[in-house]
């Protein structure tokens, strides 16, 4: 990392951390969105999972064990002198949750980033979020210049979303746009939490 060590560390006044998951299929712009709002250059961490093949053991031994690496890119925003927010960018498919169980626990919610050129890539992401985490989520459509444009209600129907799930159009390259998408998610989470109390 090129950042100076003074920028590397969290301010000593910070007493608690919170997290938002930025979830979406490969290449949808998760790291771009995180980088546009993060105070640090996005960092990457990798987990490795070994899964033995099902069936008869091979004489070759180790060769039938497949190794899967699942990466997670993340960034940080110090929202006030006492609170730091982490943005964890996660692919959100089934094997990711197998490996990162508990990542969603205690999270504010998830911002699901989608690309209208490949909407079907996000089906597994929604499925997993709903069945594995139960955390509130909002949908951000990363508007690539050559992507077809749909209205929020068309997308709500295509993605089979609840009437109150926020859908926001964004350009993940721009800080204001990314921040606006995160704001929609936190407003939604706040609304849900208030409704429960």
């Amino acid at each position, binding site marked *: *990392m090129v950042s100076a*060590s003074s920028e*590397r*560390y*969290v*301010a*000593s006044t*910070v*007493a*608690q*951390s*919170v*997290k938002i998951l930025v979830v979406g299929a*490969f290449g949808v712009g998760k*790291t771009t969105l995180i980088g546009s*709002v993060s105070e*640090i250059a996005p*960092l*990457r*961490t*990798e*987990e*490795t999972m070994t899964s033995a093949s099902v069936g008869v053991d091979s004489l070759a031994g180790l060769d039938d064990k*497949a*190794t*899967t*690496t699942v*990466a*997670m*890119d*993340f960034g*940080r*925003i*110090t*929202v*006030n002198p*006492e*609170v*730091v*927010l*982490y943005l*964890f960018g996660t*692919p959100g498919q089934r094997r990711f949750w197998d490996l990162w169980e*508990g*990542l969603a*626990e*205690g*999270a*504010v919610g998830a911002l699901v980033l989608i690309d209208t050129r490949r909407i079907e890539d996000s089906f597994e992401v929604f499925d997993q979020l709903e069945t594995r985490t139960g*955390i509130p989520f909002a949908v951000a459509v990363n508007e690539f210049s050559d992507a077809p444009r749909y209205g929020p209600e068309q997308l709500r129907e295509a993605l089979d979303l609840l009437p109150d799930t926020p859908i926001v159009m964004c350009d993940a390259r721009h*800080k204001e746009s990314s*921040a606006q998408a*995160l*704001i929609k998610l*936190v407003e939604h*989470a*706040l609304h849900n*939490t*208030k409704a429960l*109390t």
Partner: protein
Amino acid sequence: MDDYRDHPVRPYVLTSGRAHPSRNTIRPETLLVVDPDAPRPIAPTSQQKALLEMCGGMLSLAEAAAHLRLPVSLVVVIASDLVDTGHLQVRAAPRHTPPPVELLEKVLDGLRKL
């Protein structure tokens, strides 16, 4: 990002065969810092030494892992041991429930100022 590739050493080789931490209170967002007044471990492993040096200022576990280029799951095990022995402090225990209204409002205010 979703590529498959080989990894030369299984992470648990570095943790004496343990794949799970001694406690379940450290998450990627958990803030860690070394207490400057705490004694240093007498015979730290190279990973323990690296993590303690990294946490000379406050960092989340995920950041420490990324800077050290080690998997989060491995650093959780190393950090848990160091927390147990008092060499590393956890700034705030991770929450198991959704954030309360007051905390969500602070996050919202902070995002609106970006």
